[in-house]
């Protein structure tokens, strides 16, 4: 078997090595010729083995028979013989001119190492559902956050970009769909310290493990119901210093923005809408004909808000080390201008990872990362909606630079561009994140290691928001002032949080013949605190002073608040692994957690798991199979917990203070903060997982299939309480939800002469069902319903069945509304009063979750060229279109999109949209119904890279490694029927995702 395995590996690496061989040229004058043969186990020749003279770039590669020839400076020069999957050997040829070198296979290297919770395992030993990614798989992407690079890469991990704002880009990620009503965020861990992933440099990432089933995640106990993502940063590797540089520069532009109608269409449809509502037309024929004249001015608000923006990303790293010391030091710099004016981010990442082996028994390592960052954003929120509603008739700026106000606009929407431009102010967030992990390993006995770890992550942020006073001039007489904004205003919010943990672990590992046993046990303590201080004042004399004291001296204009909170968690963890003959594996985990969030007597929870694996391809009956090269089945059972409920003190009946006034003097008031629940405890998720992974036809097709079923009990749930309860619903342990699904991952690779290619496809799905809601009836929240025996949060509302086409139809149909007339949406009668459309007629309209997220990745290599194509999408989904992408003449001053021109008229009875209505009667049609549920499935062409690699060159002492240059892009294309902004982002007008064209370079020396 081992031979077979070796052959597979050999085949896999041969081409790579042969290519490598071409890059390496021998340099310098050598005096002594030496030749030899390199063999593996069973005296089989090893081709493609690297043979170099130690400390120089001189070297060669063995041929097909394992032979090599080389000239070396002297017979005392050491040769380094290295080959992937084998232990590197050093040899001094001496007088022996025909060397015979036998390399021993390196078990650990043969097998990829996977980082699991509180330790590492060989990939073949894994018995749970863990997906892994190497840092190299996400390198060279022009993404600013690690999570974005994970999108579409891991089956069962569904990543969604909520918006595209630099520095605060919302990224939602979920592992295996929804299994609970409460929030159960994915636990993200960087170098052993729980921390958000948003400020880490993607280039520092060595590997990412995604722990999906409860058996793998149980080691994280009470925080693991959402699954766990473990990010490990790079380590120093023994050898001469390796310098690497990578850089990307790119130009970003908005992905999608629905187009507004022209001035004329706006006027015509607004007239039509008003007539439909029984109101006089707004624009006279004379005004309309003026709009038809070719010189009539039209203003593009999106164009004024958005821009092409530059992004650059540079990373420089050095790594290396010796026998007792290894280091990895990197400096990253990211600068991204936003595609919306007045927005940008800059981030530095400094990562210093070191390890010292004081002795064979004592090792220290530390990994520290610091990232100072600056984010700039417009000073106000909600401007996307203001811009979205602006008709093209409204002017933005006069030729001499004055902000203009159209006579019909008022308030916050009078000129959103003025307010978001630097002339309207700026929001500046300066933050520093520190993350550090200090570990000591002590190995008193050869099989026993004691590990002590201290981890720290802290965020210190200062947010400063300054809004300037703005003067608006009249659009049609720009010399006259139309209005001002009220005052300038400064807000300062200082916030800080610190998380610390200490782990003390002992692990023991021993091989007894065919038995391999390892045990790990220990305890951890984790604690967290946060606070913020908020101050606001206004009426600054000038706009350049950003300190509170420079504002009004009138203390009654000050607005001050501050908060603090903390939590802690203490745990005992243990894990045992046993394997027999390297084909049967079993693992067990128990974690016991105590949380400060629950009352003393109910704060401890125990989270066990068991899992097993069987490598079938090691068995006799498959060992010689030509088809199946590798096959493994896995099964697991486990329990994990969730403690996210009602803040950090859900047991406490807290009071909030406020102020009331009598005769102009303040008096203190108090009111309850919410309904407490002292009996609250863990939510528990139990899951079983079956996995099968294999490799067919010697690597031609690799597959991995996971099936899972989860049951979440004692869900932390705000049950709908009767309104007469008079208070917010308390969080309770109530309800059971089942979630089941599958994940499939396929890889295919092939090499045809100088051409090679690979295809990776992954897809998953999950379906939940509410088993129990402790007898409470359907929970209707907004336009969604949750009911026992059904999936959670199904769309719920009136079902639209086309348009009314005649007054007769309106009269014969159940009563809808006093103003219903032809061209309005018609709703289906489904019970209750048969003569009227009422809330009793609401029905289920479909599931609200995205189905079948998938990703596909193609890569091609031909000689020095490489091409990567990567796309991702969702196959099924229903989203509500609303806001300004729905048909909305909200008041007279908002406009519509070009696709709304396809609307009902007597001549177009089957149009896409109902007849237009204006402002107040809009709701007749825009109220939620099945009509506004849109197909939100999509496929997004996410990443393209076309690269060319220049062969490396050795000059003198330094060897220039290969240099790869590439061109590509991100978010290049989307295929969808969704009409709104973006099927991926939240369904209102938000910061659009950028599309980007970029150039990059990777070099090392």
């Amino acid at each position, binding site marked *: 078997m081992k031979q077979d395995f070796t052959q597979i590996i050999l085949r896999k690496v041969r081409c790579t090595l042969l290519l490598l061989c071409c890059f390496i040229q021998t340099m310098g004058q050598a005096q002594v010729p030496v030749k030899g043969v390199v063999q593996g186990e069973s005296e089989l020749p090893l081709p493609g083995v690297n043979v170099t003279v130690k400390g120089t770039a001189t070297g060669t590669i063995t041929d097909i028979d394992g032979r090599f020839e080389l000239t070396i400076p002297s017979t005392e020069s050491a040769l380094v013989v290295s080959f992937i999957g084998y232990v590197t050997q050093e040899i001094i040829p001496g007088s022996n001119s025909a060397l015979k070198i036998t390399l021993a296979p390196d078990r650990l290297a043969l097998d990829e190492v996977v980082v699991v919770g509180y330790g590492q395992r060989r990939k073949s030993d894994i018995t749970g559902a863990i997906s892994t990614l190497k840092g190299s798989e996400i390198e060279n992407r022009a993404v600013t956050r690690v999570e974005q690079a994970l999108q579409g890469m891991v089956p069962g991990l569904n990543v969604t970009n909520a918006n595209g704002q630099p520095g605060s880009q919302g990224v939602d990620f979920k592992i295996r769909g929804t299994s609970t009503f409460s929030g159960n965020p994915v636990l993200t861990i960087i170098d052993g310290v729980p921390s958000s992933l948003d400020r880490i440099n993607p280039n520092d990432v060595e590997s990412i493990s995604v722990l999906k089933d409860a058996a793998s995640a149980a080691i994280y106990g009470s925080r693991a119901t959402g699954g766990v993502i473990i990010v490990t940063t790079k380590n120093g590797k023994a050898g001469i210093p390796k310098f690497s540089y990578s850089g990307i520069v790119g130009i970003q532009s908005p992905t999608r923005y629905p187009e507004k109608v022209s001035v004329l269409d706006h006027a015509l449809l607004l007239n039509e809408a008003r007539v439909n509502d029984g109101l006089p037309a707004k624009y006279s024929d004379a005004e309309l004909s003026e709009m038809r004249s070719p010189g009539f001015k039209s203003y593009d608000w999106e164009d004024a808000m958005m821009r092409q923006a530059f992004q650059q990303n540079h990373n420089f790293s050095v790594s290396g080390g010796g026998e007792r010391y290894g280091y990895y030091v990197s400096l990253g710099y990211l600068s991204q201008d936003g595609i919306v004016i007045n927005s940008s981010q800059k981030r530095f990442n400094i990562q210093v990872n070191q390890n010292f082996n004081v002795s064979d028994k004592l090792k220290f390592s530390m990994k520290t990362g610091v990232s100072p960052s600056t984010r700039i954003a417009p000073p106000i929120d909600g401007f996307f909606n203001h811009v979205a509603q602006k008709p093209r008739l409204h002017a933005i700026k006069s030729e001499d630079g004055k902000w203009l106000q159209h006579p019909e606009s008022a308030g916050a929407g009078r000129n959103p561009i003025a307010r978001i431009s630097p002339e309207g102010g700026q929001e500046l967030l300066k933050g520093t994140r520190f993350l550090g992990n200090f570990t000591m390993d002590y190995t008193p006995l050869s099989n026993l290691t004691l590990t002590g770890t201290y981890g720290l992550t802290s965020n210190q942020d200062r947010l400063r928001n300054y809004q300037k006073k703005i003067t608006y001039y009249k659009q049609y007489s720009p010399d006259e002032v139309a209005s001002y904004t009220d005052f300038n205003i400064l807000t300062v919010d200082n916030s800080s949080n610190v998380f610390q943990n200490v782990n003390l672990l002992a692990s023991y590992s021993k091989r007894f013949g065919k038995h391999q046993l390892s045990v790990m046990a220990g305890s951890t303590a984790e604690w967290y605190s946060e606070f913020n201080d908020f101050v606001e004042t206004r009426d600054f004399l000038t706009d350049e002073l950003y300190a509170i004291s420079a504002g009004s001296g009138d203390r009654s204009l000050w607005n001050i608040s501050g908060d603090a909170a903390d939590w802690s968690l203490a745990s005992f963890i243990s894990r045992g692994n046993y394997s027999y003959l390297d084909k049967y594996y079993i693992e067990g985990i128990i974690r016991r957690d105590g949380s400060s969030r629950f009352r003393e007597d109910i*704060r401890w929870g125990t989270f066990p798991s068991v899992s097993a694996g069987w490598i079938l391809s090691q068995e006799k009956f498959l060992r010689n199979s030509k088809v199946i090269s590798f096959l493994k089945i896995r099964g697991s059972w486990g329990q994990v917990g969730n403690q996210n409920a009602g803040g950090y003190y859900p047991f406490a009946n807290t009071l909030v203070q406020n102020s009331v006034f009598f005769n102009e003097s303040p008096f203190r008031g108090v009111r309850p903060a919410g309904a407490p629940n002292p009996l609250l405890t863990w939510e528990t998720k139990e899951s079983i997982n079956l996995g099968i992974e294999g490799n067919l036809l010697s690597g031609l097709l690799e597959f991995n299939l996971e099936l899972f079923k989860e049951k979440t009990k004692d869900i932390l749930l705000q049950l709908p309480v009767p309104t007469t309860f008079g208070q917010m619903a308390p969080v309770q342990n109530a309800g059971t939800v089942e979630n089941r699904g599958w994940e499939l991952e396929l890889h295919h690779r092939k090499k045809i002469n100088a051409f090679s290619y690979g295809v990776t496809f992954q897809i998953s799905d999950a379906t939940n069902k509410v088993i129990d809601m402790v007898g409470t009836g359907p929970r209707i929240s907004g336009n969604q319903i949750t009911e026992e025996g059904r999936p959670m949060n199904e769309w719920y509302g009136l079902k639209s069945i086309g348009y009314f086409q005649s007054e007769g139809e309106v009269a014969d149909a159940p009563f809808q509304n006093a103003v219903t007339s032809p061209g309005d949406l018609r709703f289906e009668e489904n019970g209750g009063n048969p003569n009227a459309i009422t809330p009793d007629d609401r029905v289920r309209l479909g599931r609200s979750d995205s189905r079948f997220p998938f990703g596909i990745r193609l890569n091609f290599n031909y000689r020095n060229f490489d091409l990567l194509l990567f796309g991702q999408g969702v196959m099924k989904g229903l989203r509500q279109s609303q806001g300004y992408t729905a048909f909305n003449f909200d008041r007279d001053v908002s406009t519509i999109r070009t696709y709304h021109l396809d609307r009902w008229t007597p001549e177009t009875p089957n149009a896409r949209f109902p007849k237009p209505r204006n402002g107040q009667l809009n709701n007749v049609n825009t109220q939620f119904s099945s009509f506004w549920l849109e197909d939100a499935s999509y496929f997004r062409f996410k990443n393209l890279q076309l690269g060319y690699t220049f062969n490396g060159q050795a000059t003198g002492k330094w060897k220039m490694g290969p240099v790869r240059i590439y061109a590509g892009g991100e978010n290049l294309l989307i295929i969808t029927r969704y009409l709104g902004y973006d099927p991926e982002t939240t369904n209102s007008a938000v910061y659009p995702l950028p599309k980007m064209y970029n150039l990059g370079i990777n070099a090392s020396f």
Partner: protein
Amino acid sequence: MNYQKQFRLLLILWVSMASVSCDDFLEKRPLSSISMETFWTSEEQAEMWVNNLYSFAEESMSGLGGVHVTTQEAYSDNAYGRTSGALNNIANGTFQSNDVRVADAWNYTTIRLCHEFFENIDRVPALSESGRKALTGQVKFFLAYEYFKLITRFRDVPLVTKVVSISESDLGVTPKSDVLEYLLLQLDDAIEDLPVTWPETQAGRITRGAALFLKARVLLYNERWTEAAAVARQVIDLEKYALHPRFNELFLTAFNNRKNEAILELQYVENVRTHDLSVRFSPVTYNGAALILPTPELVQAFEMKDGLPITESPLYNPQRPFDNRDSRFYDTFLWHGQTLNDSYPSLDLTGTESGFAFTYVYFRKGVQDFRDRFRPMHLNWNLFRYADLLLMYAEAKNEASGPEDSVYEVLDQIRVRAGMPPVDRQRYPDQASLRKLIRNERRVELAGEGLRYDDIIRWKIAEDVLNKQLKSMDLSEWEDAPKDAGGKSVLIEKNVQTRVFDPSRHYVWPIPQIAIDQSKNLMQHPEWK
């Protein structure tokens, strides 16, 4: 090296660190708030609980409601609400059980807070009897006020009489008459417990007069005329209140807490507790948003200064429709060519404002003090005022027993204060004619104060006054109107909104859908099924 020894040392260290007392480590208490368990230890703290009942959200009818009560004008034939929100759904008849204003009017939060007070007040050590009475009286007033608002909109509602657990809280409706009796009991207690006056430093607290006022209003709205008149008389007999000599000063910030006419003033403070009445009422060119605009019907309801309606007075001239009117007319409205005060230029309805001046008139009442366009207002809002009480007395007495001297007298007081002639006894000699006058006087005196909708509902006239095309004013003949190139007035009559009022359902509001969806026992009113 002695590894054994080293190992042992390390093991001891490790075990000792691991066994640091977990329970101390895990004991966390809220860092920024006090808790209910340790509260209720002094009279001062009990007072804090009561104080909170006075807080109100500016965008909701919860609690005392603040100036937000004025938005109810747009439900009625007094005003048009310009915004696209739900402001107009009531008046145009399109509202349903999922309407935001319907949901907002259904609120049991304050009711729970009141009952929590009753449950906890006995925990307070050494509570003085006077302190207990004063606090309890206020809480009972708030409890009664919440139920009054509920039955006025929703007729039959669930009656919660204690702090309920979740399982106890799922209640069906109780007939309106039973809820009414319950709230009247609360009010009787409040009247007994509350002081007639508070120290000046606590101006704005509920007094006995305010509780009596509320009781009069409750009885009036429920057509218990004799009792309503008697309770109103009790307020008059307190001899604490009187009409403020000058009508316009009732709506000037300078007179905050300085009017004998105010029975309950909602308290505002410069910069700290402000309101946006100016935004709701004022023209856009004055930095307002012109959200609530008076209807022509309201404008026409104001008599001429001779005490005759415009249809009968010889003083009325369509070329000068704004001349010679009831003096309150000039304190209530703003129109083209006028100004709010000397801080603003005269109003021009031809430019920017033309897109907003749907009815061609604006409210001046309540915003005449709005001078600094950058500062929100802090005019105290007169939630209960004596003129209203006198009008309630007149109405109740007239309905109970027909015209009598005291009815004419109170109406005279109001009219004379406004510079109007006293009631012409010959012109309004009987109950029916006087009813018409009282109703009109009420509409004029209280215009813009948010009470008209309640009136047209209880008088059952909404089906007449709300069931029609709302139009702008017709100012085509007005001499001072802005003119087009041909010399014609641009302020011609135009349609503003089609209003529908269905008498078979619109006299009661539907129970909010969210309340029905979250309950097993709550059924929708039959009219709304």
